């Protein structure tokens, strides 16, 4: 359902800045920043706008969305795909984004093992029968460490012009603060969670009693995850349909790591070779260039200077070949960070980069091919 659009219509008088929807998203993000969950599911993800924001949170490695309406998810799901740059510069973390088509009234094993489950403006769209099953599915079955549930606060409605019964024709109910809190406390008690209440969309001064425009309950599971107990007792069948899945390129994936390392090794070697060759090619070659060397931004030349002091790490030329010791290359921060250990470096570039016979140095040809014309 389209939350953003409908709220825009009444924010004209009571103006929330940033918009209420943005505030809800920001709330979730702050929560993510605080608890650093690795696996996050958004129930009722609609046009995936919250997921789109969450994919930038660097702690999250698994993101899932669930919605009853496949077409609304599909409309913008491609925006959850990796960007070209994600392929060009694979990130350190891994990230998988999956969208499922299904109901929160049904259990599906793909929803197990999450750290945070968000239900933003979801429950008020549920039919009575679905709402009844909802706590068992989310708290009983999924049983994440944290659940966030937001829903409209009906006490705020008189302040919103144009709202007759509910804020949205698809809403099946809208609760006041007492109603929401009693439902939430009961649910929390039943499944051994603690709950705290807050909200976004502050009421105007003097009317604090009506409470936030959107009320939010943050549920935290009291007992640490007992894990198997719940899950093993009844293996559930998959009922959701996966409509989208994107695996982001990551350096955790050997394939991407290898490409990145090889690329960095050869590039570093090329730079060292270039330096070496231009040094050999007579000093007085190019006075214009030499005189104005200010290495303020020039991290490479500084760095090389320091390096060469150490023995066995000096690159050298033999015939048509330049030898750049792997140890030298490994000492460059970028290579170092990527590989971690020298052994790993050797393993990753084995067979992919031309090495000296003893395998201790990268070998590059000094031949400079001439262009005609």
């Amino acid at each position, binding site marked *: 359902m389209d939350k953003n659009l409908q709220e825009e219509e009444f924010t004209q008088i009571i103006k929330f800045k940033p918009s209420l929807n943005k505030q809800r998203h920001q709330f979730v993000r702050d929560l993510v920043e605080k608890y650093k969950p690795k696996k996050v599911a958004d129930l009722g993800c609609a046009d995936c706008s919250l997921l789109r924001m969450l994919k930038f949170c660097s702690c999250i490695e698994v993101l899932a969305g669930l919605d009853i309406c496949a077409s609304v998810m599909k409309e913008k799901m491609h925006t959850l795909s990796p960007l*070209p740059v994600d392929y060009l510069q694979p990130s350190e973390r891994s990230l998988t984004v999956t969208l499922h088509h299904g109901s929160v009234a049904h259990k599906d094993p793909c929803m197990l093992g999450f750290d945070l489950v968000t239900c933003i403006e979801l429950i008020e769209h549920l039919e009575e029968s679905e709402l009844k099953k909802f706590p068992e599915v989310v708290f009983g079955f999924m049983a994440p460490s944290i659940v966030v549930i937001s829903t409209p606060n009906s006490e705020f409605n008189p302040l919103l012009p144009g709202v007759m019964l509910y804020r949205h024709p698809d809403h099946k109910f809208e609760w006041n603060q007492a109603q929401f809190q009693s439902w939430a406390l009961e649910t929390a008690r039943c499944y051994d969670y603690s709950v705290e209440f807050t909200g976004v969309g502050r009421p105007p001064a003097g009317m604090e009693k009506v409470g936030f425009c959107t009320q939010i309950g943050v549920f935290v599971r009291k007992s640490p995850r007992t894990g198997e107990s719940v899950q093993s007792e009844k293996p559930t069948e998959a009922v959701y349909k996966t409509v989208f899945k994107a695996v982001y390129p990551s350096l955790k994936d050997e394939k991407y790591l290898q490409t990145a390392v090889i690329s960095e090794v050869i590039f570093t070697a090329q730079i060292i070779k270039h330096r070496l060759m231009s040094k050999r090619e007579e000093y007085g070659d190019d006075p214009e*260039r030499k005189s104005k060397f200010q290495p303020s*931004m020039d991290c490479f030349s500084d760095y090389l200077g320091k390096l060469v002091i150490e023995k066995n790490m000096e690159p050298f030329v033999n015939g048509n070949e330049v030898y750049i010791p792997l140890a030298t290359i490994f000492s460059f921060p970028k290579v170092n960070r990527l590989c971690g250990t020298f052994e790993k470096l050797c393993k990753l570039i084995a067979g992919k980069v031309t090495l000296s016979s003893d395998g201790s140095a990268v070998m590059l040809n000094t031949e400079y091919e001439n262009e005609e014309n």
Partner: protein
Amino acid sequence: KTIGLQVSSGLQDLSLRDRGGRRRDFHDLGVNTRQAMVHVQESKTGLSGRMIKLTTNHFRLTSRPQWALYQYHVGYSPEMEARRLRSALLFQHEEQIGKTHAFDGSILFLPKKLENKVTELFSRTRNGEDVKITVTLTNELPPTSPTCLQFYNIIFRRLLKMLNLQQIGRNYYNPSDPVSIPNHRLMVWLGFTSSILQYEESIMLCADVSHKVLRGETVLDTMHSLHSQVGEERFRDTCAKELIGLIVLTKYNNRTYRIDDIDWDNNPKGTFRKSDGSEMSFVEYYRKQYNIEISDWMQPVLISQMKRKRGNIQGSVALIPELCSLTGLTDKMRNDFNMMKDLAIHTRLPPEQRQREIGRLLNYIQKDDNVQKELRNWGLSFDYKSVSFTGRVVQGEKIFQSGNMFDYNPQFADWTKETRGVPLIRAVPVDNWLLIYTRRNYDVANTLLQSLFKVTPSMGIRMSKPNMIEVDDRTEAYLRVLQQRVTPDTNIVVCILSSSRKDKYDAIKKYLCTDCPIPSQCVLARTLSKPQTIMTVATKIALQMNCKMGGELWSVEIPLKQVMIVGIDCYHDTVSGRQSIAGFVASLNQTVTRWFSRCVVQSRGQELVDGIKACLQTALRNWFKWNKCLPSRIFVYRDGVGDGQLNALVNYEVPQFLDCLKSIGTDYSPRLTVIVVKKRVGARFFAEIGGGLKNPPPGTVVDTMVTRPEWYDFFIVSQTVKNGCVAPTHYNVIYDTSQLKPDHIQRLTYKLCHMYYNWSGIIRVPAPCQYAHKLAFLVGQSIHREPNLLLSDRLYYL
């Protein structure tokens, strides 16, 4: 305020649905030039030459008989503004409208006809407001209508997206299987270009393999390495030269931006005004919006000009170098022989492999259920086998040089060997010349001199000893020597440069092309350092020097009399001042071996065509001087016409040519032919030889099947390639009063591909186009203003 709701032709609104809302008609649809040329109404095909069996990368589109697209106008009462709301309200009635549709907010396309011409639907908004939607049939589009073709293209793009290909610019690429070239920090993505057009007999999909070169580094990385290369002094300048004009991708969205400027006074701590009017720093914005921490707070900010309004953002966009990745190649990279060689291994696919890759795309399309469903819903399908037909290979040309006649081996399309040691048609003596070198290159200079003395006599060139001048390796030193030693009697200046640093080269060229118009030849010392190639190099240099002084090398038979051939090409300078330069070259003699060359330097906002008109006038005057009469036939080969610019050419440039001819005299009415030359075309041809696919031989002409019915056009494969697929050149005759048969126009065009003196072989385009290109490039890259007209009767820019 209400949205304009006029019922438009649909074409513009349709293109709005295309990404980026480009309104340009890339395929020059609806420019019908053939109808004005009576002599090609019946047939535009030639007959000469031997037949050759060809296949191509075109695939027939088969739609069901009577296939039509139904265009509806959708109106709302009361008026609804938001496009999303309009869609949502309309598609509440999906059972009536159907699941297959394309809707841009006011125009709806359906593959089926609704029962009534006007359908009224009633929806309710979430606020309980009742809305009447009126869906009115405005058009039934036959499959060949431009709107329908545009529509096919959009549908096809949807399919590519469904196949999880990534859109970069106009094409789609597969990111999951990249080729990495670590030596140069490049990545190559394989992708596809596609276009669906009405061709001679049927609507076809033209699919070709496309390679996107991406760089595995951010703009900031590039800035760092530039800094370490050039130092502080020239840092900003170099950054501007290297980066402006490049297309970048960002870390946080799927858009591409062009770098138009670098704001050195700004940095990530700087603020910008958000759409809601509040100020925010870049650092804060990226942290808040995307959780991205900018690590370097001292970097400058890149500026990208928005071509059109996007929402309420207008004008320019600021980008952070650290968050941008570069795409494509710079001119500098293109000139890097090693880099291009390494790239070519991956991008130059031989015919078989190329066809296999294209086959793979069609295979994906065929295998993907969702894609097939989408196609079925629109009633579309493709022939998965590419089109085959017969082309013609026209006869090879004879090369004439001082009374000798040569055939060349058509397999190589090159006559370097055949003409070696044969006197040139016109050898200009080199009596008075300068040879300038640095101390370090003294030996190299002597080697060059000795080699020149060896190779020139057999060419018929008389060469005296030069003034040997040693200089310091500084730009000012070179210039001082030129100022002191060049006299009006100097035939040519040869400079040996020790590095490929552009500023020295530019300064020398600028001085000797404008202030002191004397031909010049620059040679890199490195090129002369290999003993095994020195004779070849010296031969080439001698030939080049001869041309620069007004010499002539060889000729082919040109049967037409009193003919002037014109070549025009453009160079767009994206860095300094954004000027455009048109090179203009016109033949001066019967044998088409001497050329008059001028160029037009146009700054922003000016029209190139005014300058071109003036060039044509002076060219005619010069032709008159040389031949004592005016040409009775003029052929203009116009290169450098972008996609979608054909209309402008037909409606503005051609009338200007005619105007110009009229202004010469009332009794002067030569026959004029204007041919648009296009090197960048999607079509590829493969010759079926011995059961395999090979490149078609030079001289292959295609003027059926894959040409356009509304044009008088043809393809010629004139050059050969060592590896990869040969690209045919497309020729579109947009104006023709020559009364010549298509055969003759095709033959003349092919002959002219033999006349480029910097290459003793056949080239891709007619020589005048290549000369015009060379000239425009030199002026655009190095000189930046019009060279001295005293040089205009020589190929000084070769």
